[in-house]
């Protein structure tokens, strides 16, 4: 088991998620928002591993490891598609600021 109490690591993953959410909610640049999404996914993966480490008393369950690898694969997929969208948005609207893309309003 780790030297620091396990709650520190749970707090770590929660703070990564919180920082990722902060980036999503506040920042303007689309690329930074995608970075925030990746951050959140990393945080979620970390939560899986930390909890499994805690419950498994020092070893991580292989099933959980497989799930996390699949999750990382999906994260790369999300990043790829959203980057493609960003490129198209830049071509069409000439901006990387999501506050300028406002058509879905009342």
């Amino acid at each position, binding site marked *: 088991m780790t030297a620091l109490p396990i709650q520190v690591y749970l707090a770590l993953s929660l703070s990564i998620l919180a920082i990722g959410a902060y980036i999503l909610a506040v920042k303007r640049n689309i690329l930074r928002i995608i970075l925030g999404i990746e951050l959140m996914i990393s945080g979620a993966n970390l939560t899986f591993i930390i909890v499994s480490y805690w419950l498994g008393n020092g070893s991580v369950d292989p099933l959980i490891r497989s799930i996390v690898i699949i999750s990382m694969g999906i994260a790369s997929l999300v990043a790829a598609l959203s980057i493609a969208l960003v490129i198209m948005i830049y071509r069409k609207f000439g901006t990387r600021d999501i506050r300028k893309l406002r058509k879905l309003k*009342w």
Partner: protein
Amino acid sequence: MMMYADLLIWLVPVIATLLSPIVAKVSRNGAHALSVSAVGISWILALSMIFDILSGNVTYYPSNVTLGSIPFAHRIVWIDLTSLIGMKLSFGILIDPFSVFMANVVSFVALWIFIFSIGYMSEEPDIGRYWFLMNLFLSSMLLLVLSSNLLQMFIAWEMVGLCSWSLISFWYKSKAPSPDPRFSTEGEYNAHCGLKALITTSFADAFFLVAIAIVGYTTHLTMGNPTFDFIELSQNFSWLGKIIQLGIMPIFSLFLISGPFGKSAQFPYHEWLPEAMAGPTTVSALIHAATMVKAGAYFVGRFFLIIYTGATVYGLSVPDGVSTFFLAAAYVGAFTAFLAGTQGMVAKELKKILAYSTISQLGYIFAVFGIAGAVLLEEAFFAGALHILAHAVFKALLFLCAGAVLHAVHSKYVHDMGGLKKYMPVTYFTMLVGALSLSGVPPFAGFFSKDLILHAAMHFETMIPYVLLLVTAVITVFYTFRMIGLVFHGEPSEHIKKMNEHGHHIHEAPLVMRIPLIVLAVTTIIVGFFFEPAIKFIAGEHIVFEELGHDILSFVLEVFSSELILVSAIVILTGFIPAYYIYIARKADPTKIVESNIILRALYKFLVNRWYIDPLYYKIADGLRGFSARIRKLQTGYANVNIVYMIIGFILFLITLIFM
């Protein structure tokens, strides 16, 4: 009946519907011929169904294949989910005296209205859409009255609502100035009227659908398989017992009656019918006088027949709470009759007077069907069914005459007309026949049916409906002859004088419009005498043709010798004398009479504003619209804000998950 008549009767108008837009582009007269022949074929097929009722067996002629005995439901299985949830949805046609009666009324009146609209819509460029919608309406209405189960009837119910909306807003592209200050063009006003009708009836139908779902659910619980079939519902009343056991009987009754109230424009859904007069007059005649608004009354009668055949033919005991449905129909119907009658006394547009009259007469039918169900009185049911027939005929006649007048005068306000008696004699005479029938003057059809209604109303537990209906009869006579006097008697108005100066002379309606008027007038005169055979027909008894004359004579003598004819005479005179004095002989000025008395002035203001119910509805609608406009601002369009909403939602979800 003729071969496959029960399926062809509504299938032929569907074919006419599909072909109308195409044929109308090719040849105008071709479209006219197509629609009139479709409705003519429907009428002949409906007539052929009468023989089945008379003989007691449903047979196809000429192949002489017997399908079954009356009442017969010709069912075709549509969705078979027996393996999954044990339910079978069938498409069915019910051959039953009441449905065949209604089918005949609908197709007969529709035939003459279609012929009339050849002349009325002669200058209309969009005739393909008109015939499409009218034929679609006719087929849905026939499907409604002939359908054998509740779900199919509801589907046809919604289809007639759809056609009604499209036909009311028929002239939505009109650029003439709007009569209502809220809209900029007349086209917008017409579209608004159509939408008002659609929304009101859809709101009422939502409750109706819930009631139908309750029927399906309780039949599923008690009888194993959910069924909506009318015959099966009358054979086993355990579903009614289950509803009472679940404690939802009052809600069920109110929801079930909400649909007929909405469709037939009874209180509180009565506001759409006066506005529906924005459509063409033939549409008003067909849909809002003779057929669609009778659909609600038809359903109340059908529900009465379910209860009554269950009680008498199958010997079941009627559970107690069922009378809530009929009591609601009776009281609300009588009240609406009075409400609409008072509004008709002060209406300023010709078609609006007839619209209020329609609501009022439908109130009569609802009241008497309610009385029939509450005390299980068969005589009241016959009175209601016969008033459906009589009202359809004379109201269609009145609307068509109004159409002829509107066509000639080019204005819909009744104060723009006057003295038309010498210009349009045929229209005057036929409208007078219709008015006499509506007022209940013997020997027209309206007299007999109103007499039967009042006679049946005396058997009710309280006298409230009877008194309301009697007072409404006086008011009916008054506003009817007010209408006749303002339109046909007296001096021509300023509007007509201006038209004559400009060279547009008022002329009699063309022949194609005159013939339906004459036919309907003759029908109104004759059909009253055939009420006794009609009663026997609806009751399913055997009619012997040799005794027909004897039946008619005995019926007439019986009616004329009862004490009610004295009451009717007093009622007619009470209503007629003021109307004659003010409007026909023009010996007094109504505005001066109202202005001089403060009570009359307040009463007039109250009635002209339609009892302030309509403004109340608009205030509620405006409040809702303002509320939704304010809520709409939550949708800013910024992605960051949406993400914040998502996070908030997710946190709420987590809290729910943890603490519940």
